[in-house]
């Protein structure tokens, strides 16, 4: 027989009392575990969006009263990768102005932050001009059902939304993310006076309403633009409709061919049909208009928030939203909530430990004669201390396991109550933390009375018997 077994047997000798002690620890561990899981899951969800879009600025039409107030503008949108705005537009011609303010703010902000000095590892050349991708959202009838059809410039979109992947199909052959910036100047000519000319190919509509290539602005017959009738589908939409690569799709009487199906990204993109921007503009009579511009900064620590403020201050009719700032607000909110709940739980645990301490002290003093007997037959102070520590280590371990299991269940409930929108993620770290917390709570309650009792003189434990 070993001291550990003796401790275990002693523990099992008082099941009710130990159950009361354990239940306090179980509740404490469960509360902290559930809070940690929910908080961690919510933070991870935010961090993932930040990782994807943290250096992205979204520019939309100012569609609310907030449009005139820069501060209100900044708080208008939730953290998301593609907020759909219908019925409000930004003139495509405004994009250069937007980009001008954006680039200026980024450069100034970058210099203010100490530039490369405070951003080791980023070469000077990496402060490239930002790239941008316009979108036009329209509700349209697709194969007899209403769907959001989004006009995009595939190459730019792919570059800005670098997390996009195709589950089937291919991007247009000429898609090359590396030369997307040079492509900007070929689409738009910026004069020395700052005015912009849009080099846009014209489209016409035939008698059946089908889009056909028409003439460019010089009047020459334009070749049919390669890929003008390409369609890319959001993963969820393709799955729901059973559509696959090469299938035909009719949008407002025009036929499109599915060239690719996107991987699901848990965003509104999953339910959209994407067609070339120029085709969409013609199809929906929105030439020269776009619903949104996503701007991707080309440096990881670009001061996107500064750019957002500058744009909202100087460009009328638009609302710029920095995903990083929105994420920051949500992050701060969850952190504040976490700290508040943590304070409540820690207070509860402190009260719990005090209660456990009282129960344990009473329980140990009830064993005082037994302790004296153990000392008399040769148990040293340290060996006695070990018995108490082992007992409460086992108790804390068991309570930690139970608390962890309970905490898992509570995490799902708490997540629903707090409406974090995050997917609960569980790692082994939480189990270790729960076990450590359980053991620490149990040991903290025992350590002082155990120390005091192990130091008691034997005659004090046998006072009535030995004081003859």
């Amino acid at each position: 027989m070993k001291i550990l077994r003796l401790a275990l047997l002693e523990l099992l000798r008082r099941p009710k009392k130990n159950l009361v002690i354990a239940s306090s620890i179980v509740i404490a561990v469960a509360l902290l575990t559930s809070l940690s899981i929910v908080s961690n899951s919510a933070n991870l969800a935010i961090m993932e969006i930040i990782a994807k879009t943290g250096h992205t600025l979204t520019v939309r039409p100012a569609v609310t009263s907030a449009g005139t107030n820069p501060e209100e503008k900044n708080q208008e949108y939730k953290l998301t990768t593609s907020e759909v705005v219908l019925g409000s537009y930004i003139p495509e011609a405004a994009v250069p102005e937007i980009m001008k303010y954006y680039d200026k703010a980024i450069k100034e902000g970058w210099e203010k932050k100490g530039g490369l000095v405070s951003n080791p590892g980023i070469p000077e050349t990496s402060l490239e001009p930002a790239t941008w991708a316009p979108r036009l959202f329209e509700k349209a009838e697709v194969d007899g059902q209403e769907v959001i059809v989004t006009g995009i410039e595939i190459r730019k979109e792919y570059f800005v939304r670098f997390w996009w992947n195709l589950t089937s199909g291919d991007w247009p052959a000429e898609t090359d993310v590396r030369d997307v910036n040079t492509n900007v100047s070929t689409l738009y000519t910026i004069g020395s006076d700052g005015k912009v000319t849009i080099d846009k190919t014209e489209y016409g509509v035939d008698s059946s309403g089908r889009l056909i290539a028409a003439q460019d602005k010089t009047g020459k017959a334009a070749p049919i633009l390669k890929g003008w009738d390409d369609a890319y589908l959001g993963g969820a939409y393709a799955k729901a409709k059973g559509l696959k690569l090469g299938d035909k799709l009719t949008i407002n009487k025009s036929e499109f061919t599915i060239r690719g199906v996107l991987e699901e990204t848990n965003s509104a993109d999953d339910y959209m049909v994407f067609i070339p921007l120029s085709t969409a503009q013609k199809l929906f009579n929105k030439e020269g208009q776009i619903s949104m511009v996503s701007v991707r900064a080309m440096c990881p620590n670009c001061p996107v928030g500064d750019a957002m403020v500058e744009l909202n201050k100087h460009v009328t009719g638009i609302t710029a939203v920095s995903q990083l700032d929105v994420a920051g607000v949500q992050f701060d909110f969850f952190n504040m909530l976490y700290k508040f709940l943590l304070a409540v739980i820690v207070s509860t645990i402190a009260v719990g430990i005090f209660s456990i301490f009282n129960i344990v002290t009473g329980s140990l003093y009830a064993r005082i004669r037994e302790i004296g007997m153990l000392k008399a037959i040769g148990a040293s102070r340290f060996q006695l201390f070990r018995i108490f520590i082992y007992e409460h280590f086992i108790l804390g371990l068991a309570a930690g396991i139970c608390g962890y299991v309970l905490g898992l269940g509570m995490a799902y409930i708490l997540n629903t109550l707090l409406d974090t929108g995050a997917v609960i993620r569980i790692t082994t770290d939480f189990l270790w933390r729960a076990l450590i917390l359980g053991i620490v709570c149990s040991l903290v309650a025992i350590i002082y009375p155990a120390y005091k009792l192990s130091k008691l003189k034997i005659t004090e434990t046998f006072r009535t018997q030995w004081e003859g």
Partner: protein
Amino acid sequence: MSEFIETKGLKKIYHVGGQKVEALQGIDLEIARGDFVVFMGHSGSGKTTLVSTIGGLTRPTEGTVLIEGNDIWKLNDKQLSHFRNRKIGFMFQSFSLLPTLNVLNNVVMPAIFSANSGKKDSDTLKSKAISLLTDLDMKRKVNSFPSELSGGEQRRVAIARALINDPEIILADEPTGDLDIRTEREVIDIFCHINNAYQKTLIIVSHSLTWLEKAKTIIVMKDGLIFKDLADPVEAIMDGVCKP
């Protein structure tokens, strides 16, 4: 019999409710190896204090306790625990056995506090415990729990436990205090057997006169002092009893 246990000028002062109580008032005592000593006296005479001081349980206020020439109160806590574990087998009137352990585990319990208790030692100890229990006519109760034993049986288990580490001294405080006459005689016979068969030095504290028949040495105490050169110990013990 050679000189074995010696106390010199042993004093113990308790402070109870702000008052000094001299439990031992300078005891000089010698106990030979293999002796069977019974301490007797009225309650409060200091016999238990003296025995617990000899056993390394109560630190004296003054004086020394020499076991084989070594002052046990110069040992540190660990050494003193080891001394109690290896040199002395204790028996108490009550609270003696752990209710969670069966008879066998109660008997081997002192061994778990010894430094070395490997698998081989564990098997040897169990064999030894069974042998002791057999000798004490308790083999059939090896797997019983204390609550299933009578008072006499519990004493036998406690005796077996006191012997498990093969100590040289058996120290018992009122080992028959709550037993009926018949069981008391059985227990006393066992002590005699231990003294004769195992050559252990027995130091017993008791109020019971039954021990007088078997003890080799009787020490009577009063007010923290030893009565020496007693012609009739019984008379000395009885002195003052039922008298004004």
